[in-house]
């Protein structure tokens, strides 16, 4: 009986909006951790540049890649900042939709209870406004998803750079071990970010599942 009810009961709009809010909050938390990691890459890249300079000509290729990784980390942070702004926009809009749902439910109840369905026009205006908010949320959701895809592509490029740095490290002669260690750390961190973004792209906030 309970299972049948669970299978047939559809969640209300308010419940769905509440779940959406929870999902976007989780995405925001994940983005915050990615921003923290991207800051770490910047420091790592700086250290790698100094190490490459000490290694001299043997680590020239590694030095070029370290510079590229530093640029990548800055681009990644900029991308994450833009994502954070978009997420804040989504959180605001989901909150507005939640408030709309509560207000509209009270207005609808009032109109249904009142004689001659007084207030129908106000309710219709409220519902039209709700539609606008819902459409805006759909747009923000698409923009956020596109921004996540862009960030993901950027991180894939970062992964290529990190892997190339690993190869270059092998030519570092007496500095090969420390260079390998640094490039291995790069690769690990970039992979960590890639996995986070991959998970975010699969978030039910975008798929609705």
């Amino acid at each position: 009986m309970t299972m049948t009810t669970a299978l047939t009961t559809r969640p209300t709009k308010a419940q769905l909006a509440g779940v959406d809010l929870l999902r976007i909050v989780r995405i925001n938390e994940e983005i915050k951790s990615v921003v923290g990691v991207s800051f770490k890459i910047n420091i790592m890249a700086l250290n790698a540049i100094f190490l490459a300079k000490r290694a001299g000509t043997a680590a020239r290729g590694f030095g070029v890649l370290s510079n590229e990784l530093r640029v990548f980390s800055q681009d990644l942070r900029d991308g994450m900042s833009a994502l954070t702004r978009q997420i804040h926009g989504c959180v605001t809009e989901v909150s507005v939709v939640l408030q709309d749902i509560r207000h509209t439910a009270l207005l609808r109840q009032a109109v249904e209870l009142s004689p001659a369905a007084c207030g129908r026009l106000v309710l219709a205006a409220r519902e039209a406004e709700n539609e606008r908010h819902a459409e805006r949320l759909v747009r923000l959701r698409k923009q956020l998803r596109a921004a996540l895809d862009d960030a993901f592509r950027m991180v894939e490029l970062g992964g290529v750079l990190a892997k190339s740095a690993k190869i270059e490290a092998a030519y570092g002669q007496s500095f090969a071990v420390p260079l390998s260690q640094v490039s291995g750390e790069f690769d690990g961190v970039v992979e960590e970010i890639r996995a986070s973004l991959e998970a975010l792209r699969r978030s039910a906030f975008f798929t609705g599942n």
Partner: protein
Amino acid sequence: MKKTKTIFEDGKHKWIAIVRDPDKPNYLIDTNEYLVTHGNQGMLVDPGGAEIFPAVFSALSAEFDPSALSAIFASHQDPDICSSLALWLEFNPQMRCYVSWLWSSFIPHFGGSTETFVAMPDEGLDILLDGLHLQAIPAHYLHSSGNLHLYDKVAKVLFSGDVGAALLPPGEDGLFVDNFDKHIRHAEGFHRRWMGSNEAKRRWCERASQMEIDMLCPQHGAIYQGADVQRFINWFDGLQVGLCGS
């Protein structure tokens, strides 16, 4: 759905009490809302919380066009007083909300914009409702630190907010007080605990004694009328307030 009862009527000048919803959940305190109409305008007095908006709206709309509500009077800042504000503003975004200056930046958290609020000074305010002069009367610290009541000199009605309020048990929840001694027992604990200042109480009683009042209309409980009005003022004057039960 709440019931409406016209408690004063002289042509288009009316006081309508909106009271007693049998479907109201027990966890919400029961409230009385009042609609004052004059000419083509209406003022809703302590419109109530968001949760009871459908019940108040439906009852009110049976008597009056909600889009013709020009003002809301909020005696103080509590959620059972005016957390429904945003919903009322849907019907008339030009509606004004009269509120103590003390709360004029707090109540906007319930809704409204800069244009919505009329901040009432501590000494009170004359309010015009389509030619009818209403008076906001100071009742600070009874119970809120910024608290005003509404007096209609023509109808001789004083809306007294939480002063006169009683928490009535089922079966004793008539609209008017019919047995003062029995009724006041349901008001005593409320007034001792909620009213914060004996000095403020004294001043209010002195002021109220000098006013012509046929009906004293609280936001909770039953309406005092006739001799029960002065009886209540005398009782309140003698009560020690600002006391915790334990």
